[in-house]
């Protein structure tokens, strides 16, 4: 099934259902959700992702962070930048609805020196205590991991007049686990790697994917574009994950998803766009439209452990 509905709407609709369920007898003409939004179209300046090198670091180590920005048709890359980068210094309240600590929207932050698009974040030495499994002083409740067992240092970006949060994965020791499980985890865990594709093909022409933030220029005369991201090896890494229910370490495999966006025309791709064996590729079709002279397409590849890589194609009319 090909359509352009993004995860936001689909997920929201799925979650709407319990509260409206009692009304289903009236559905034939009554209940209607909002029309699906075209989330693949960039209508205003946005931050799409932060590419981190490396994507997982220990407290006290540094990560190079590069913001991937998108802009609407008629603008150019040079117009935009990140106004400020901030390390959050307080954890999120357990059970609160957000994914970032609300205190980080106000004052509980540490500014990072940066230029418009990049910064180097030195992770605090107490990051695993504030945001990880180490109990804070006084024996308080540690933070909870995500489904991959990961913990994250939230980093706030101020751009385009609003807040964007990057979550930098922390390499923390296993907390409150049996000794043998902790030892097994420590000996087998490898830090996460970016799911960088091996190559990009555009209308059959191959490009080596030489950077986690890949940029190429295309000619609009060649539109529409048949795009394909290809991995020569399975990008879905396996990793040890502590199962808090069985209190043992088990082997899990990442998921890798691909999102495509453009500021002109239409992008068609299958959703959800997970990379899987044996194809190990993600395909899309981009038709920028005949009346544009300069259009851009972005692709964001994310793995479930918080790493991301990005692709930007600038299509210019010769």
């Amino acid at each position, binding site marked *: *099934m090909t359509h352009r509905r993004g*995860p*936001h709407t*689909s*997920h929201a*609709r*799925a*979650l*709407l*259902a*319990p*509260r*409206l*369920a*009692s*009304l*289903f*007898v*009236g*559905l*034939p*003409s*009554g*209940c*209607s959700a*909002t029309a699906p939004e075209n*989330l693949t179209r960039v209508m205003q300046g946005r*931050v*799409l*992702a932060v590419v981190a090198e490396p994507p997982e670091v220990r407290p006290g180590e540094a990560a190079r962070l590069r913001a991937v920005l998108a802009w609407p048709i008629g603008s150019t890359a040079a117009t935009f930048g990140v106004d400020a980068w901030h390390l959050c210094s*307080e954890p999120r309240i*357990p*059970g609160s*609805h957000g*994914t970032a*600590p609300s*205190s980080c929207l106000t004052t509980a932050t540490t500014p990072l020196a940066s230029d418009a698009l990049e910064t180097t974040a030195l992770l605090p030495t107490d990051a695993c205590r504030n945001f990880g499994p180490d109990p804070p002083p006084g*024996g*308080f*409740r540690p*933070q*909870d*991991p*995500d*489904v991959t067992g990961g913990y994250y240092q939230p980093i*706030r970006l101020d751009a385009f007049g*609003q807040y*964007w*949060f*990057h979550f930098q994965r922390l390499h923390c020791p296993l907390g409150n686990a*049996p000794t043998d499980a902790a030892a097994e985890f420590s000996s087998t865990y490898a830090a996460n790697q970016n799911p960088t594709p091996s190559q990009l093909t555009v209308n059959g022409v191959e490009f080596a994917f030489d950077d986690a933030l890949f940029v190429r220029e295309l000619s609009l005369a060649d539109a529409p574009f048949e795009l394909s991201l290809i991995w020569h090896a399975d990008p879905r890494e396996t990793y040890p994950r502590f*199962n*808090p*229910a069985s*209190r043992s370490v088990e082997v899990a495999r990442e998921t890798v998803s691909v*999102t495509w966006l453009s500021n002109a025309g239409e992008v068609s791709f299958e*959703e*959800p766009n997970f990379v899987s064996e044996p194809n190990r590729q993600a395909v899309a079709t981009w038709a920028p439209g005949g009346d544009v002279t300069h259009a851009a397409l972005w692709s964001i590849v994310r793995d479930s452990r*918080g790493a*991301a890589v990005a692709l930007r194609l600038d299509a210019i009319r010769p």
Partner: protein
Amino acid sequence: MFMTLGLLCSNVRAQPSAVDPIEVIVAAPPPPPSGAHTTLLAHEAAQTAGSQGDAAKAVQSLPGVARASGEGEPVVWGSSPHETGLFLDRVALPMLFHGSGLRSIVPTSLLSTVRLTPGAYGVEFGRYTGGVLELKTLDDVPVSATLVAAADALDASASLAAPTSPSSGARLGARYGYVDRWLPEVLGEDVAQLYTVPSYWDAHAIIHLDLESGDRAKIVLLTAHDRAQRGNAWAQYAERNATTRLYGTYEHVSVSSSGFTSRTVVTPSIGYDRTTDATSNYDTESSARLSSTSLGLRVETTLNWGRGPVQSAERKLDATALQRLEPTSFQLNAGLDARAETTHARHRGSLTVPPREGDAQVFGLPPGRDYVADDIGVERAAVAPYAELDLVWASVRITSGLRFETMLTELGRVLPSITNLPDTGASRYASAWLPRLGVEFAASRRVTWFGALSRHVQPPEPRDLGTLVGNPTLHPSEATHLTIGDTTKLSRTLSVQVLGFRKWLTHLATRSQAPNPQPGRLLADGGRGDVWGSQLFVQLRPTSGFSGWLGVTISQSRRRAYDGTWRRFDYDQPLSGTLVVNQSFGAWSLGSRLRVASGFPRPAVTTTYYDLQLGRYVPMISATAWWRLPAFVAFDVRAERRFALGAGGSAHVYVEVLNATNHENAEEVAYSSDYGARTLLRGLPLLAFVGVRTEL
């Protein structure tokens, strides 16, 4: 109140559909509550427009019940659904409706009466801080074999009632919902993945025994199951509920020549409940499962003097019954309410699932990223002896009762598991004296003033006792209820009741707002609640086939977190009103229902940020700023025609039109992906139901 003393005679030996008065023995029934309560005969309730022939669903039309939302469980006088006790023959039920609030789990053919006490309920009930809804099954032994088959757009059912001997009989029945089979086909894939279309079934069996000694026994089995599943490539949701009750009642009645009447009822019960909710998508997954096995035992003895033993079936709902009492009488109601249960709750996923009352969230907000695994084992025993003395002297009736609630809770773990150390369990004991005082004063032959003050406690939900998702040391929540009002009888069949009510709620479990709470203290029991309001209830008992009621409730319900901030109760409805009118003539029965209600409060989105890992906007939601959905208005009509069949059988065909004016009601608000725009989701359009029921 005085005027309703005759409402709840329990030993009615008449068919519920009897028209002619039948002389029956009334053996000292427990006194009805002296505060506010509403009782409906099941077969009358089933005629209420909007109930789709479901007597228990008519509860949603009673005064004091907020308009249903979500799964349809009743919100009574500003209390959460789980704070109102649901009882079938005084055996607690975990839910009233099959998933989605579509059908009640108790078939109408099983019921004799439905009674709602929205507050200040009697000491015979306990462990709930809201109200009490009592469903009572039929008591009489079937006098002849009757087969009832029914079908409509939702389900089909069949039930058989037959005598097995001159003094015994049985009722068997089953219902199967098939709406999930056709609705997705009609609505298409897109809508099918948007809405829960439940499949469900239930079955029941009752064995009635009239013993030679005059004693009576009844064994009841009820089992109800439902499940719903939906999803798309991004997200899946599954829900499954099952509940089973097996219980018996043994009733012994004695009448002495000196005017004393005693009645003893013993009700042992076994129950099994299981619920599962699971959501998953590519970046989060959450599930909550709860299974519980319970044993219950109730022993109730009622001793009275001076209350006439003979009533008629019709007179049970005749408000003039009071005047037929002896001028001086008393009734003592004493008993023991014991219950033991073992519960296992399993939590996987975000702490925001399932959402709690008061959580700041908006429609469609995905669960959080956090993943918590908590297994909670709770064994609990509660024993509550109680006694209530009901005195009538001249124009005054005083009902004073006392319940001593004792609760023992065994927890397998009181702190999160610590590496390489065995878990530490604990036993916790709590007790409470729960008094209740009701006073009535017959100011005149037509006017009765009444008031009731009571105290109630409710143990914490088992899942709230988890070391990682809750707090094993939670104190039972407490409530004090006060009702004051009067009833004016304008005629033999028309009465007007005006009352005010107040509820003070304390020790409510709320989320801790600390970024790093102490281990095992994710919830705190310092929450408070405050509910007040007034209610008008005009009731017309059937006269010349015409009946109905008007109920208007004006109320405010709010909650205060332990940090001192007050907020609106999630289901707060300042105004709710229902007008029900029924008219029967000949083979026709017509009914209508008009409902008006304030919209539900919704929190305001103050700002948003974008989560670059999940690739979605996240709203910041105010804990105190809120707005309301637009008011709800709906008009429903119902027509039923009875056709005589051979051999005394009959067929009933009904048509029910919901939202006959096709009013566009806003049921919820959906936000755009960046939460910058919101759209109201419209509810039920005009919709017609057709159903058939045959009795042979």
